[in-house]
């Protein structure tokens, strides 16, 4: 195989000389028109091969251990078809000659996109040759299927979960943007830096005093100088503490203020973004940007920036002092420094690798627990306790081993650093001692020298770690800036028509819509809805029911066509005003952390207690609310009182009733409740929909019994429209769905009975 370095770049011009030479022998005098490098040999080994289209022929050649081998050769005008076949992990490019298909090349998925482009080019070249001969054109068939991982737009590297390419960050620009956050607090930042400098300077004084004590007090036998020297030392220590305190306090204050600004700015911005932004990202990831990533920015602006300055400053000053004391000795003590830097960077990376591995192993240990403890009934029923224990033990052992390894490495690191720094002091005592006896250095200087040595090695270890910390901050900043740089949802409505007085008549006119280019979700939707009408949306998962609702809410605008409300294009309405007219009751009703009253009045915070109770009564929620100890002041949300699905549902209906919207959207409002609760909810819904235009999505068709008309969607188109009775009479898809569900119901009862039986059996087994 060709060494990797020579094979790249394989482009049109970059055909390796050997292949180029081979080509000149095989198809002399033909000009190369297209080249595709592939990474698999015909039989399925990794290896280099090329598909080359010249003026007249299409050849494929592979690089074997004993040289280049022709795999296939077809005259271009004989190419009848070009096929791209996609398999798992690899694909094949085929051409058809005289009705016979031939494999031209195999390739891994990584090259699939490139091969598709080249395949199309080959088809074009063949067509050009065939046209003059009166032969039909050639087209590429087949495609490469699903897309792979997201890649960096600049360098092509695979992007991680966080969507940031660490190699392509413009770090300087990021640093400046982060520094920009300090601007409002610049005087404080400068004061903090100044204090840090003072604290450092004062911290460098004690060794000098020590030298004075040894040389001019003890060695000189001058007792009267001892008192003042001690006072001086005491003053230095007090000053250092005071400066350190103010520095630490100021910088912590600065960091917290800055990061509070960033968090608040980012959160505000998040709320201005369109729904589409959220659908492309995971909730947890976005939350971590606000909490975790902003913390890294805090570290950068508060700690990091001043540390760079202070550490470098400290190192320089100490070096100057040491050089002035004894130049040769200073240079000698610098010898261990490369060792410190190397050890720090080397061992730290390895320790971190072990800790990361330990974290992962801890995760897999927790995964066993998360399986087995909630599933304890199954484990016991199948008598698999021993196996679960063993499964856990294996992981427990793995985690322990890694943790011990990490601890060992870390202990070794500490010991190594201590030893290396000790070398420095050995040098001082050995060489300095020699100088002492030669009269070239006094005792006080030697002691002071040693003290400075320790003060020097510390910052050097720190400096070697600075780049990595900056790296963390830069990627974190990039993720935060991505949010800040995303354009807010723009209300493009020019007329800003207020929606407060709408009647709620709808007209969908030739609506086409796709979330992603090339994957249309809705085709040519035409529908008129009377004000106050209730429309049931029915159809299988993914046929576009939710998309219609998304368009109605203007989370998205249609690609083509328009929705008219009371005769005006929806896009003319003021966005906020329009949405304030929409009430939603979702399958998983969302309750906010707060009291029941607060949740019912969510859309209208100024609602009176009277209205809240009225809404709860209309939603059949009043009675169960009055049965809780804190009644309307009960806490709900994840930490509050436990409400059943049906109770949460009724609170969300009460919220919609109080909100009093002109337009209602139900998404499977009664999906997972018992029959009695469903009746209470249906009753409440009926009260709510009266006089309001309503769109209701449902899988369980029984919930649509109040709908005026039912719209059956099939693959993004309207299949049929009509009342329940009409559709049942025509015997179309809707009637088939209804019949299927009715047939299923007795079976569901049967399954329930089975469960009951097994539960009893289980209880018996426990006895």
């Amino acid at each position, binding site marked *: 195989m060709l060494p990797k370095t020579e094979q790249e770049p394989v482009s049109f011009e970059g055909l390796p000389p050997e292949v180029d030479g081979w080509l000149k022998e095989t198809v002399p005098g033909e000009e190369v028109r297209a080249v595709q490098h592939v990474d698999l040999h015909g039989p399925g080994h990794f290896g280099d091969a090329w598909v080359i289209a010249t003026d007249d022929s299409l050849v494929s050649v592979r690089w074997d251990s004993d040289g280049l081998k022709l795999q296939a050769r077809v005259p271009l005008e004989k190419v009848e078809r070009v096929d791209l076949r996609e398999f798992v992990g690899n694909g094949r490019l085929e051409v058809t000659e005289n009705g016979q298909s031939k494999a031209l090349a195999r390739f891994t998925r990584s090259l699939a996109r490139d091969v598709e482009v080249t395949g199309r080019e080959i088809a074009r070249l063949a067509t050009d040759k065939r046209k003059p001969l009166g032969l039909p054109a050639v087209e590429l068939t087949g495609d490469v299927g699903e897309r792979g991982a997201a890649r960096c737009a600049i360098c092509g590297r695979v992007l991680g979960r966080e969507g940031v390419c660490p190699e392509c960050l413009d770090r300087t620009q990021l640093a400046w943007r982060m520094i920009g956050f300090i601007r409002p607090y610049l005087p404080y930042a400068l004061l903090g830096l100044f204090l840090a400098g003072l604290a450092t300077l004062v911290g460098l004084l004690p060794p000098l005093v020590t030298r004075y004590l040894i040389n001019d007090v003890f060695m000189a036998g001058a007792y009267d100088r001892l008192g003042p020297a001690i006072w001086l030392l005491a003053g230095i220590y007090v000053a250092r503490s005071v400066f350190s305190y103010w520095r630490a306090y100021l910088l912590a204050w600065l960091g917290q203020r800055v990061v509070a600004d960033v968090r608040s700015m980012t959160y505000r911005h998040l709320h201005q973004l369109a729904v589409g932004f959220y659908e492309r990202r995971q909730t947890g990831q976005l939350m971590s940007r606000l909490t975790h990533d902003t913390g890294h920015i805090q570290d950068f602006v508060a700690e990091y920036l001043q540390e760079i300055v202070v550490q470098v400053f400290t190192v320089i000053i100490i070096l100057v002092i040491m050089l002035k004391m004894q130049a040769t000795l200073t240079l000698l003590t610098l010898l261990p420094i490369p060792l410190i830097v190397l050890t720090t960077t080397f061992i730290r990376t390895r320790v971190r690798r072990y800790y990361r591995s330990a974290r992962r192993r801890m995760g897999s240990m927790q995964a066993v627990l998360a399986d087995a403890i909630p599933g304890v009934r199954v484990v016991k029923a199948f008598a698999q306790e021993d196996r679960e224990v063993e499964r856990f033990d294996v992981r427990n052992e793995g985690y322990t081993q890694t943790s011990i390894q990490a601890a060992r490495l870390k202990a070794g690191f500490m010991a190594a650093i201590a030893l290396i720094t000790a070398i420095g002091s050995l040098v001082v005592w050995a060489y300095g001692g020699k100088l002492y006896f030669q009269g070239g250095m006094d005792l006080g200087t030697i002691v002071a020298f040693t003290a400075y040595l320790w003060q020097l090695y510390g910052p050097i270890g720190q400096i070697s770690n600075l780049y990595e910390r900056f790296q963390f901050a830069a990627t974190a900043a990039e993720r935060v800036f991505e949010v800040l740089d995303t354009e807010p949802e723009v209300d493009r409505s020019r007329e800003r028509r207020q929606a407060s007085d709408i009647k709620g008549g709808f007209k969908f006119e030739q609506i086409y819509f796709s979330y992603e280019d090339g994957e249309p979700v809705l085709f040519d939707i035409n529908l008129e809805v009377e004000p106050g009408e209730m429309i049931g949306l029915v159809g299988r998962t993914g046929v576009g029911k939710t998309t219609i609702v998304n368009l109605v809410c203007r989370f998205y605008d249609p690609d083509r066509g328009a929705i008219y409300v009371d005769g005006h294009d929806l896009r003319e309405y003021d966005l906020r005003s329009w949405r304030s007219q929409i009430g939603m009751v979702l399958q998983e009703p969302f309750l906010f952390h707060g*009291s029941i*009253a607060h949740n019912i009045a969510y859309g209208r915070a100024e609602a009176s*207690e*009277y209205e809240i*109770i*009225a809404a709860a*009564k*209309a939603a059949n929620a009043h009675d169960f609310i*009055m049965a809780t100890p*804190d*009644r*309307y*002041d009960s*806490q709900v949300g994840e*930490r*509050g009182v436990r409400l059943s699905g049906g109770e949460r549902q009724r609170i969300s209906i009460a919220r919609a009733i109080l909100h*009093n919207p002109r337009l209602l959207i139900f998404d499977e409002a009664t999906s997972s409740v018992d029959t009695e609760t469903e009746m209470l909810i249906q009753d409440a819904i009926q009260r709510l929909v009266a006089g309001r235009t309503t769109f209701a999505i449902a899988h369980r068709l029984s919930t649509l019994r109040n709908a005026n008309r039912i719209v059956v969607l099939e693959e993004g188109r309207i299949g049929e429209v009509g009342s329940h009775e009409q559709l049942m009479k025509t015997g179309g898809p809707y009637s088939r769905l209804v019949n299927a569900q009715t047939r299923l119901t007795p079976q569901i009862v049967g399954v329930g009975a089975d469960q009951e039986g097994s539960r009893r059996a289980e209880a018996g087994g426990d006895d």
Partner: protein
Amino acid sequence: MTDSEREQQAQHAADTFAVIDPGDVQFRQNDDGLVEAVLGDGSVHAGIRVAPAFPITRPNSFLYLFDGDEKELGLLVDPRRLDRESRDILLAQADQAYFMPHITRIIRVEESMGLGIAQWEVETDRGYSAFEVVSRSESVWFVGRDRIVIRDADGNRYLIEDMSALDKRSRRLADLYI
């Protein structure tokens, strides 16, 4: 909202609320300490139970009344318009229905390490009390902007009506825990 809608809603409210007019009811306490209600139509209901609908935010208004058979008599929105004696009787019942001393001073809050149990000693409008709170996240909650409800290990409730009205030391103790 249009006028006709308002009318509709008022009508609906009258249908769903059995609202008791404070001018139309009297309360009296019999020798056993039980409360009787005398309604405008002359009917007498014994064993009255009072249930405040908003016990924390509106403890003395929006009171639901039930008779001895747990039959709902209706909602009494504003007891201030009752005659003095009736009002005192009713509010005493409301207070009993939802007993929640107001903390006026915090003497001590100590958290035991690792167990998440906090010992509180407080001065309330009903006198001194000491209690334990088991889980901060489940037992302490905010109502509105600054009211804080604390539920102790046994389900008793305490209220800090307004943090800023407490003395400095109490504030600091509560602040760190809450």
